[in-house]
C-alpha cells in the first residue's frame, strides 16, 4: 500500500505502507467475545435485584440512577436495607478476597436518600383498563401491586388490617424497621395510583363478583402454631405475634419482670428483644436445639445477646404456672434431633411468650389444594382457581420479606400475561460468575465499612433504631468495592493490553469492539479482564 505518491525524501528509495494491510486476523483459532455473566449477588437475590447493575451507578455517585435501577425490581429499598437477610452478601465473590461488599448497607443508603429527596417512580405504561385485586398488603401483595401498576393495570389492595405493611408493620419491631420508613415507601405506591382498601377482611375468592380480572392472594402465614404446654390457670401465656402486634399498635402490654420466650426463630428473638424494651429485667429464650441449629439470623442473635437477652439452648418448656415454668433439658441425638433427658428444672417467669412458628390461615383458601401446609401454586404462581394467583408466606417457600417481594414481582408479570399481554421472552440467565472467572490481581484490598450500631445500653430504653446508616462517603466507598463480577466496567485492560492493537475503544458507556482483521486470538484480553467479561471461543470454520 503506497498510497502516498509524493516524491520520496533524499536517500529514501522505497515508500513504505502501513502494516495494517497485513490481516493478521487470519492467524486466529479462537476469538474474544464480550459477555455478561450473572453476578452471584443477583443470582442469590430472591427479589431478582440486579445488584451489580445498581452498584455500578452508585459507584459514580449517581444515587438516583442507582435507586431507579434498583426500583425496577424492588419497590422497598429502604425497608430492604434494614430487614433483608442479604443472601447476596453471602454469595458475594469479594468475600473470597477480603469481605463481601456491604450491599445491604448501600441499598439502605439509596432507599433513605430517595425518601429524603422525594424521588418517585412514574407510571409510563398506557392504562390497560384491566383490574386486579390484591388480597393482603404485606410485602408480597404490595410488590405485586407495584409491578402491576407499572404495567398499566388498575390495582386495589385489600387488607383486613387498618394499615398496610403486613408483617413489616405488625411483626418486625420498630427498632429494626422504623415505621416512618415503611410509611414513606408505601405512600409512594399510593402516589403511583395503587388503591388501598384497608380494614376489609376478604372472605370470597370469586374473581368476577369481586369486579376484577384477576386476583393475587398474599395473606401470609399469620396463624400461630400451637404448642401443647400444660398451663395452670394463673399462667400468663401469650403469642409472640399478638405481643408484637400490640406493641406495633401502641397498645399497653403487661409482661412482668421475668419473661420466657419459647422458640428459636427470628420471631422469638424479636419477642425477647421487645420484652427487654418493655421493661423486662430478664428475657430468656428457651430453645430445644443448640445455637448452630437455631433458625434465627446470627446477627439478630448477636444483637439480642448484646441487649442482655439470655438464651437457654437444648431445653423445652414442660409446663407453665403463675410465676414459674418447668423446663426439661434436651440432648442432641446423632440425627441432630433433640431428645428428652428427663431432667427438669423450674425457672421463675411472670409470662411465657410462644414463638414456635406460623401456619397459613386456610379459611379464605379452603377450596384450594394445599402442599406443605401452604397453598399450592404452579411455576406461574396461579392456584388451582383460574385467574387466582398467590405468593409470599402462604405458598411453599422460604418465609422472608425478600422472597415475598420476589414472588410479587414474578407473579405480577405472569398476571400481566394472563390478562392478555404477549409473554415477554425471559432469556435463560447466563452462567454465574465464579471467583475463578475473575482476575483479582487488579482489585485493591479494601475492608468493608461497618454500619454504626446504637450502644447496647441505650437500646433497652425504647424502640429507637439499632443499626445506623452509612453516610455518603462510606456508601460510595462500599459501592466501589464491587468487583463487577462477569460484567464489563470499562477498566480498559483489554484495550490497553492487546499486543496487536486490535481492541477498539468505543468511548464511555459504549464498551469495546474487536478488530477481527488484526486480532490474532492470543487471549490476553480475556486472561487480564478483571471481571471475566470476555470469553475465548473457537473460531468458526
Amino acid at each position, binding site marked *: *500500500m*503506497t498510497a502516498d505518491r509524493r516524491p520520496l525524501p533524499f536517500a529514501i528509495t*522505497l*515508500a*513504505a*505502507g*502501513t*502494516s*495494517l*494491510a*497485513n*490481516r*493478521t486476523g487470519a*492467524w486466529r483459532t479462537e476469538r474474544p467475545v464480550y459477555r455478561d455473566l450473572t453476578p452471584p449477588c443477583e443470582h442469590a437475590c430472591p427479589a431478582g435485584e440486579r445488584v451489580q447493575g445498581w452498584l455500578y451507578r452508585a*459507584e*459514580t455517585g449517581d444515587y438516583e440512577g442507582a435507586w431507579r435501577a434498583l426500583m425496577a425490581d424492588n419497590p422497598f429499598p429502604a425497608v430492604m436495607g434494614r430487614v433483608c437477610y442479604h443472601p447476596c452478601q453471602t454469595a458475594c465473590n469479594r468475600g473470597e478476597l477480603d469481605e463481601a461488599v456491604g450491599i445491604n448497607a448501600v441499598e439502605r443508603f439509596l432507599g433513605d436518600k430517595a425518601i429524603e429527596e422525594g424521588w418517585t417512580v412514574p407510571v409510563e405504561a398506557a392504562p390497560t383498563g384491566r383490574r386486579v385485586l390484591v388480597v393482603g398488603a404485606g410485602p408480597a401483595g404490595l410488590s405485586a401491586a407495584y409491578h402491576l401498576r407499572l404495567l398499566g393495570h388498575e390495582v386495589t389492595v385489600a387488607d383486613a388490617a387498618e394499615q398496610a405493611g403486613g408483617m413489616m408493620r405488625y411483626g418486625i419491631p420498630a427498632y429494626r424497621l422504623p415505621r416512618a420508613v415503611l410509611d414513606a415507601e408505601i405512600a409512594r405506591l399510593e402516589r403511583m395510583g395503587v388503591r388501598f382498601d384497608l380494614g376489609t377482611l376478604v372472605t370470597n375468592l370469586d374473581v368476577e363478583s369481586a369486579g376484577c380480572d384477576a386476583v393475587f392472594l398474599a395473606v401470609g402465614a399469620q396463624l400461630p402454631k400451637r404448642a401443647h404446654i400444660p398451663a395452670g390457670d394463673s399462667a400468663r401465656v401469650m403469642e409472640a405475634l399478638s405481643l408484637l402486634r400490640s406493641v406495633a399498635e401502641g397498645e399497653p402490654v403487661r409482661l412482668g419482670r421475668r419473661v420466657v420466650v419459647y422458640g428459636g426463630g427470628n420471631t422469638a428473638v424479636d419477642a425477647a428483644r421487645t420484652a427487654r424494651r418493655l421493661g423486662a429485667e430478664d428475657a430468656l429464650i428457651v430453645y430445644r436445639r443448640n445455637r448452630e441449629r437455631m433458625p434465627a439470623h446470627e446477627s439478630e442473635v448477636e444483637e439480642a445477646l448484646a441487649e442482655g437477652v439470655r438464651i437457654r439452648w437444648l431445653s423445652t418448656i414442660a409446663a407453665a404456672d403463675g410465676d414459674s415454668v418447668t423446663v426439661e433439658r434436651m440432648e442432641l441425638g446423632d440425627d441432630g434431633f433433640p431428645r428428652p433427658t428427663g431432667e427438669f428444672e423450674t425457672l421463675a417467669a411472670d409470662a411465657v411468650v410462644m414463638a414456635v412458628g406460623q401456619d397459613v390461615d386456610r379459611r379464605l383458601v379452603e377450596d384450594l389444594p394445599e402442599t406443605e401446609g401452604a397453598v399450592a401454586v404452579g411455576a406461574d404462581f396461579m392456584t388451582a382457581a383460574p385467574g387466582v394467583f398467590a405468593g409470599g408466606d402462604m405458598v411453599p417457600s422460604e418465609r422472608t420479606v425478600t422472597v415475598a417481594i420476589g414472588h410479587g414481582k414474578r407473579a405480577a408479570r405472569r398476571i400481566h400475561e394472563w390478562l392478555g399481554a404477549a409473554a415477554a421472552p425471559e432469556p435463560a440467565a447466563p452462567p454465574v460468575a465464579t471467583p475463578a472467572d475473575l482476575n483479582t*490481581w*487488579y*482489585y*485493591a*484490598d*479494601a475492608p468493608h*465499612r461497618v454500619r*454504626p450500631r446504637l450502644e447496647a445500653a441505650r437500646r433497652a430504653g425504647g424502640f429507637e433504631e439499632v443499626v445506623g446508616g452509612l*453516610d455518603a*462517603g*462510606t456508601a*460510595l*466507598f462500599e459501592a*466501589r*468495592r*464491587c468487583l*463487577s463480577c462477569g460484567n464489563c*466496567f*470499562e*477498566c*480498559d*485492560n483489554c*484495550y*490497553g*493490553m*492487546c*499486543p*496487536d*492493537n486490535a481492541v477498539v*475503544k468505543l*468511548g*464511555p458507556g459504549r464498551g469495546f469492539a474487536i*478488530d477481527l482483521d*488484526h486480532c*490474532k*486470538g*492470543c*487471549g*490476553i484480553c*480475556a*486472561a*487480564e479482564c*478483571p471481571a471475566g467479561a470476555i470469553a*475465548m471461543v473457537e473460531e468458526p470454520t
Partner: protein
Amino acid sequence: MSAKAKFYQVGSFAVGNRLLDPGDRTVQSRQDRPNALTGGHRACRGCGEALGARFVQDAAVRATGGRLITVNATGCLEVFSSPFPENAWQVPWMHSLFGNAPSVASGVAYALKAKGDTQTRVLGQGGDGGTVDIGFGALSGTFERDDDVLFVCYDNEAYMNTGVQRSGATPPAARTATTPALGPAPGNAFGQGKDAARIARAHRIPYVATATVADLHDLEAKVAAAMEVRGARYLHVLVPCPLGWGTRSDETIALARLAVGTGLFPLYEARFGEVAAVTPLRRPPVPVEEYLRPQRRYAHLFTPARDDAAIARLQALADANIAEYGLEPQEES
C-alpha cells in the same frame, strides 16, 4: 466512621477506570493514544515485546509532545514491525544494525544538538541480545559520555528472532537452542545472566529503572520520569516471549506479574547509581516454582524428576533480591 472516598474497585492497577480522574489514567487507556506501534505487525500471538514497545513508545510520545526519534537495533521488534513494504511504526523510527543502536542514537542526539533543536528527544531500543551482548560496548559509551539518550532494553531473555539462542541475559537453568536441557546441569549455567540494570547503575548515569508489561502504571511513570531528565538514561523492561519461553499466548502478562511477585525481577528506579525507589510486592512473595512451572524452558526442572537443587538455587536468587531491594509487601493504603 467516615472514610475518604477512594478509588478502590480496581485500585490503580487496571489500565484505566471511569472512576479515575482522566489525568491519572494511563496513556494506554486513552481513546486517542498514539499507537506508535500499530496492528498488522508480525509478532507472534501474545508477544510481550510488541506490547512493551507500544507501552514505552506511547508514553514517550506523550511525555515529549510527539517530538521523539527512535533508533531500533536488529531483533524481533525491528523484524516483525518493518518487513517492506509494511511498516507498523507511526513515529519517526530508524534501524541500522544489530550492535550499533546506542551509537546511532547518540549520533542522532548530537545532530539535534548541532541543529540547535533542544525539543526533540531520542530513544534507542533493542532486545536483550542487542543490548547486553553485541551492543554493549556502544551502550557503555553512550552512558559514559552521558549522551542525551533514553535506551530501552526489551528483555525476553534470549535471541528470539534467530531461533531462541542463549544471550547474556538468559537466566540460569533456562533451556534455549544453545543451552539444551541435557547433561548433569541442563539449561543455562548458574552464575550467568547479566544484570544489565545493575551494570547501567555502575555508570552512575542520571536515571536507571526496571519495569514489566504487567504493571503499566509503574512502567509509564518510569518512562515519564526518564523523559524529565537529560543525559544518558536506561530502562530495562521484562517482556515474556511465548515462543521462546514455551508458554501459552494468554499467559504473557501473568508471567511478567509472577516474575515480579516471586522477587526474580525487582522493580526499582536508581538515580546517579543509587537506588532511589522500589516498587514493593503487593502480596507475600510467590514461590519461584509457580513462575517456572508454566514455562517449557524450565520443564526439565520438573520432569522426569523434580530438580530440587536447581529450584532451590533459583529461589535463593529471588530471596536475595527481596532482601537486597526491600521488596516485602507493605500495607496498602
